[in-house]
């Protein structure tokens, strides 16, 4: 059986950008969720999930996004999705209200910027998260 979807992971500064190409349905949603969760190691701010080349997503995929978003939030990380305006799946994202809990952007650049802006507690201070030995206070 060929894989329905393929994950392409890249690191953009302290964000993890994951391009998801293919389709998400009930047969692979759980698997993708586990893979994404594992990819979001603690040294990243979170995941930018690029759905620009995702051709199919249904409620199983939406469920995955909610679940992943919740998990990352509990780990003080964030999930942002990229769904270009012209993408056919935009409708499902909108209808299911994913946007209420998972921020979505039109492009990867925007999403990375958004991620860095939101997670970083002190805007403008680059040293906060870039020093791995820094204390939490």
């Amino acid at each position, binding site marked *: *059986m*060929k894989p*329905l979807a*393929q994950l392409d992971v890249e690191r953009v500064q302290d964000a993890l950008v994951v391009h998801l190409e293919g*389709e998400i349905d*009930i047969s692979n949603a759980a698997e993708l969720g586990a893979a994404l969760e594992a990819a979001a190691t603690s040294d990243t701010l979170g995941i930018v999930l690029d759905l620009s080349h995702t051709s*199919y997503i*249904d409620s199983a995929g939406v469920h995955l996004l909610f679940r992943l978003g919740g998990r990352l939030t509990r780990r003080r990380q964030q999930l942002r999705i990229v769904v270009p305006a012209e993408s056919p799946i935009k409708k499902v994202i909108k*209808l299911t209200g994913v946007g209420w809990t998972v921020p979505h952007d039109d492009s990867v650049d925007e999403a990375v910027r958004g991620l860095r802006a939101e997670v970083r507690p002190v805007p403008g201070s680059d040293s906060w998260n870039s020093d791995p030995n820094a204390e939490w206070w």
Partner: protein
Amino acid sequence: MSAERKFPLPSFGAIRDLLRRSEQAYDGADLLTARKFVGVLWAVSGTIALGLLLVEPPTESPIGAAGWLAGVAVVGASFLGARWVLGDAEEPGFDGLLIATYAGVTQIAALEWLAGGDSAYRALFVLWLGAGVGVHPPRRGVPFIGAVVAAGCMPLLYAGHETRTLIDTVTNAVLWVAVGFVLLALISRVRSQRREMHELERDALERAEQAVRRVQGLEAVSDAALAHLPFDDLLSELLGRITKVLQVERAAILLNDGDTGALRVRAAHGRDAEQLKRRRVPLGEGLAGRVAAEKRPVFIRAMEDASEASPLVPGADVSSLLGVPLLVRGGTVIGVLQVASSDDAGFSEDDSRLLQLAADRVAVAIDRAQLNEQAHRIAETLQRSLLPSRIPDIPGLTLATRYQPGAAGSAVGGDLFDVVEYLDGRIGLAIGDVVGRGIEAASLMGQLRNALRAYAIEGGEPADVVERLNRVVGHWDEGQIATLLYVLVDPRTSTLTYSTAGHLPPLVRGPDGTTSFLPTGEYVPLGVLPFGAYRESVVAIEPGSTLILYTDGLVEERGMSVEDGMERLSHAVAGGPEDPDALCDHVLETVPSDGIAGDDVAVLAARLDPVPSNKFELRLPAEPESMVAVRRTLERWLDAHGAERQVMYELTVACGEACMNVVEHAYPGGDAVFVLEATHENGEVELVIRDFGYWRPPRKSDRGRGLELMRRLTDSAKITPGPQGTTVRLRRGLKTKVTA
């Protein structure tokens, strides 16, 4: 050789031998010479008698003047006798000549009587005495001498008893007896020598014949041409030759049977050969067992019950056996070669040496064949392991593939084919042939297939994939080349995008049965040029068309042009069955002219299933994997009915949600099915999803989302639970936009 043998003195023993009754009375005699001798003697005797008639007129007998008449008659009879003996008409044998000599003596006696018993005729008696003794076998020579002496003494009866006549006659008689016996002894000596010479000659001839047979035997078993025969043919041919050379009725080769050590008949020739096939001889039993155990030839001759000596031969007509071991390097016995004959004489050392020679030959051939078989098996296993073990089920495209290794004995080729599914729903079909054979070719083929998969997974377009594979082959050390054809099928749009590297063109059969080869342009095989500048072509084919990819083994045959083969392929496909699986079988059976291709053959048939018309029904197992099939089929159908991308997606999601509910709640056991019915009428699509279980109300808010999606993405969604199952009916206009 002793002097005695050279100059034998007559002895009583010799004389007794002369007189002994013998089966071959005339052995050593020369009939032709005897006949000439007697004939000439008749003539000479007649001539002399004619002269004597004048010197001694035949008028002194009691018949008086009539003696002349009788004399002339007797002389005439002489000449007639000569003619009879010498002439071709009768060709008298020894018995005839015997009578002729007695007649000759009688004739002289008669002439002498006519002449009144004159001694002038005695010279003629001596003449006939010599002739008679020469012609008769020794035993009959004695009475003949007696007859001559008696005839010589006749004048005593009618010409008076004068003392002088008496003394002359007796002296003559003694002389004749002496001369007769000396001649007899001499002639019998000559005859026995001739007999010995004949025997020696026969022996020499026999030995020469044996030598020739042996040389022929050596030639027969060491014939270099045998080396090219396939293993089993070699064995039966060798056995055939051995039976001919050794003049035996049966021959068999028994080989060690792996672990058990028992001997198994591998090849047999001659009588009962068929019954012997695959028979087993337990270890250590019979002749073969002894040969194997002792590692040396074993002879059995003139035995009474052959079945005791070897369980392989029915006792009835076998009395001699010979077995030699089949030895390979290191002196290991791998089997036994044995022959059986009904001749009591048994086999000679020569026979054994010849048989051993044949056995050595067989042993070498077996050794080599086993190595070859092993290499062949490795290459074949390697190749099979490199071909896809399973062809994926792809909605909209029915696939069948066949790989058929070449004829037995030939090396494994490097045919490859593969099916790659792209994420966007397109399907890559590859077929290729690595030039060359054996493990080398098979391993490059494996490399190619891996590389092809890697590039295809990245979504490579055909020309790009082929170009990159060209570099893969170019980097291969062995300087090998390969042909490749890569076709990307888009079932949604019914288009083929393909690129070829020196491979034979694909064949397409339209829904109406017409066939045509796709133009491929001229591109070199992979590995020939560093940059092949491969291009791709795009063609649209009608849904319902079948695409045939094949390797040259299918259409290339010795003594035939490829064009002929392609013509036959085109014909076979045009008249072949609709189902790709059956079509592959049909093609493999009918295209190679003798029904068996000599080379490896790979065939791939792909039918672009006809797009369902206004209505279609899909019946699938209720499992997550079925979701893809539902989407692909629906997408293709919606595309064909003019749905836009967005509408297509939304309907697919709605349908997917309905199906997912079935799948998620399918009763355990795994054999549950669900049915999707799609109808398109006047721009409106109706999808009916039916299952045969109970509809479950949404349990959690998450799953409620599916129901919500179904409603929001369609114009209407109706769920009708029932005792026999649940029906979900979705309707949506193709042009309408549902509100978000």
